[in-house]
């Protein structure tokens, strides 16, 4: 296994930068998720690591060598494609065997490796079938078997779960993580699904418009998003954001929002003052809000959505902006259309500069 490093890698098509100055270090045996919306450059970055595209600038390192001018087949990596890309005219056995044949591995050793790969993905009964006779989940496992049969330095996966139905996706998610642990493999995993990113990765690298927004462990990215994009992209239901004017009330720095104000505690206040902005975007996650009868920001309860184990309460501020509050099922649900007050844990506030989107403060 090995590490993968991207050093100031860019990919330009005419004057559009699909990947813009991306630097990323993937450690050995790490499961790194490249997360972002469609068109953010994550697939392009993956294909550059694979050698299917050439970077316009920057170097790509796999293991301990720079692979910029090394062909895809010599980079010692495997790839699982979104559509699996199984060879339709070959049996499952031959599909798994194909990467070994290209490398002229001895027949006996080949058969053993194929058997091992098939066994680890429970594919033995299907070895003589053709891809057309398999279900979506089975095809995906064949694609995985083909990838692991060579024991490459790194596995690249391009949205491998997106063609599976929801239930199978949850099950396969766990199986993929188990597989990675079992093989002690380095995995670079591309997805647009933040749930997959949060549950599978050791670290998440968030991309938007070809630019790296933030990289860190799932909890860190969740708890301390580096900018508004990351804050809104990660977390479901998404973080509530509201723009407020900076003001002083009784010696306390506050953010004036429609209908009320949000006090900023000491450390946050000094960071805001230091940044010199007069307007901020306040972010608060739905689970960090609670209802109060008298104190806080006034709001009106709009819709109460019960999900069984929890409740999403959609409220409207004075200017009709939506705010979602997450409540435990055991709490008392508020009455729809009733007025209420929203209070946030001051330590759970996120503050962003509206101009740059960047996080202000701790």
């Amino acid at each position, binding site marked *: 296994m090995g590490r993968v490093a991207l050093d100031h890698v860019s990919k330009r098509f005419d004057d559009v930068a699909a990947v813009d100055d991306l630097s990323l270090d993937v450690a050995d045996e790490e499961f790194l998720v490249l997360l972002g919306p469609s068109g953010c450059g994550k697939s392009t970055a993956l294909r550059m690591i694979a050698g299917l595209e050439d970077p316009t600038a920057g170097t790509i390192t796999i293991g301990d060598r720079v692979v910029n001018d090394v062909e895809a087949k*010599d980079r010692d*990596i495997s790839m699982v*494609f979104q559509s699996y890309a199984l*060879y339709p*005219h070959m049996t499952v056995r031959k599909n798994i065997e194909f990467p070994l044949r290209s*490398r002229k591995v001895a027949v006996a050793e080949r058969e053993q490796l194929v058997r091992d790969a098939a066994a680890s993905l429970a594919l033995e009964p299907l070895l003589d079938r053709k891809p*057309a006779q398999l279900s979506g989940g089975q095809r995906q496992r064949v694609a995985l078997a*083909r990838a692991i049969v060579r024991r490459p330095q790194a596995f690249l996966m391009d949205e491998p779960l997106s063609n599976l139905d929801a239930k199978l996706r949850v099950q396969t998610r766990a199986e993929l993580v188990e597989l990675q642990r079992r093989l002690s493999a380095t995995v670079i995993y591309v997805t647009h699904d933040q749930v997959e990113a949060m549950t599978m990765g050791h670290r998440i690298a968030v991309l938007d418009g070809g630019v790296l927004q933030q990289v860190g462990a799932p909890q860190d990215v969740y708890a301390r998003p580096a900018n508004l994009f990351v804050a809104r992209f990660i977390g479901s239901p998404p973080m509530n954001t509201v723009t407020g004017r900076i003001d002083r009330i009784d010696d306390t720095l506050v953010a004036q929002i429609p209908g009320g104000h949000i006090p900023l505690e000491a450390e946050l206040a000094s960071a805001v003052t230091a940044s010199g902005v007069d307007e901020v975007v306040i972010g608060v996650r739905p689970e960090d809000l609670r209802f109060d009868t008298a104190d806080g920001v006034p709001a009106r309860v709009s819709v109460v959505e019960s999900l069984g184990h929890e409740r999403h309460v959609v409220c409207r501020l004075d200017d009709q902006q939506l705010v979602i509050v997450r409540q435990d099922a055991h709490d008392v649900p508020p009455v729809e259309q009733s007025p209420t007050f929203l209070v946030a844990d001051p330590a759970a506030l996120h503050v962003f500069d509206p101009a740059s989107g960047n996080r202000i403060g701790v």
Partner: protein
Amino acid sequence: MAASGVTLTPARKRLRRREHGLAYLLLIPSLVIFGVFVFWPLVHNVYLGFFRNPPFPGLPSKYVGFDQYRDVLTSQTFVDSVKTTFLFAILTVPVGIALGLGLAILAHQKLRGIGVYRTFFSSTVATSVAVAAVIFGTLMNPQVGLLPWLGLTTNPAILQNPDWALIAVAVVTVWQTLGLTFILMAAGLQGVPDELFEAARVDGAGAWSRFWHVTLPMMSPTIFFAVVIGTIFALQSFGQIDILTQGGPLKKTNVLTYYIYDTLQRQSDPGKAAVLAVALFFFTLILALAQIRLLERRVSYER
């Protein structure tokens, strides 16, 4: 049709009958054309073969039953003509498909301006058999042609040379059909998902391995179609032979179609021509069926 258990009211029956009537009405134009110009001639052609034509026009033809069939089909000219026809097919079909496929693969690369090359490679589709024959006929003319400059002189000149004439005609045919073959192959190549090639690259397959394990299998339906249709067309080649060699020299380019034409027009012998035409029909049919039987097994239809 009628679902079982549903009784048809008179109104429904009328509606149903009207639909039948309309359907037949729509088919009649095509069926009339087919009847008069395809099926009747086919049957009549077999019948015509039973009549031997007199050496002088104006005299009645004589019913000889299968004798004429036997005589014509065992004649040396006929056997030679069949050999020439098959040789011609062998010279043109595999080469044409290989070239078309090769050019299509080259034109499938993601290069700037590759569209221009695709237009160039498909350009011969604007030429007809007559145009190609006239052009090449002149180029291969020993006096005014281009061959001396290329150093490709033969003695006698290439189109009058019994050893080379058929090859020359084959070259002209391959060139003329190249455009169409290229377009067909390029279209087939488009249907192969790019990800399959990428997966093969990542799996370590070099260019030749990718061709053998991905391109060829995925293109097999298209190639199969090209082989069957290409053979049928090769067996029906006529125009270029009429313009370039007229069946000669020494009957070395006397493919069956030309033999039929020559027999009908020059020798005014419709009975014999009819026999030859029936022979051509059977060869075409048998060859097509044989190809389908032998090759379709090896074609992989996915999904």
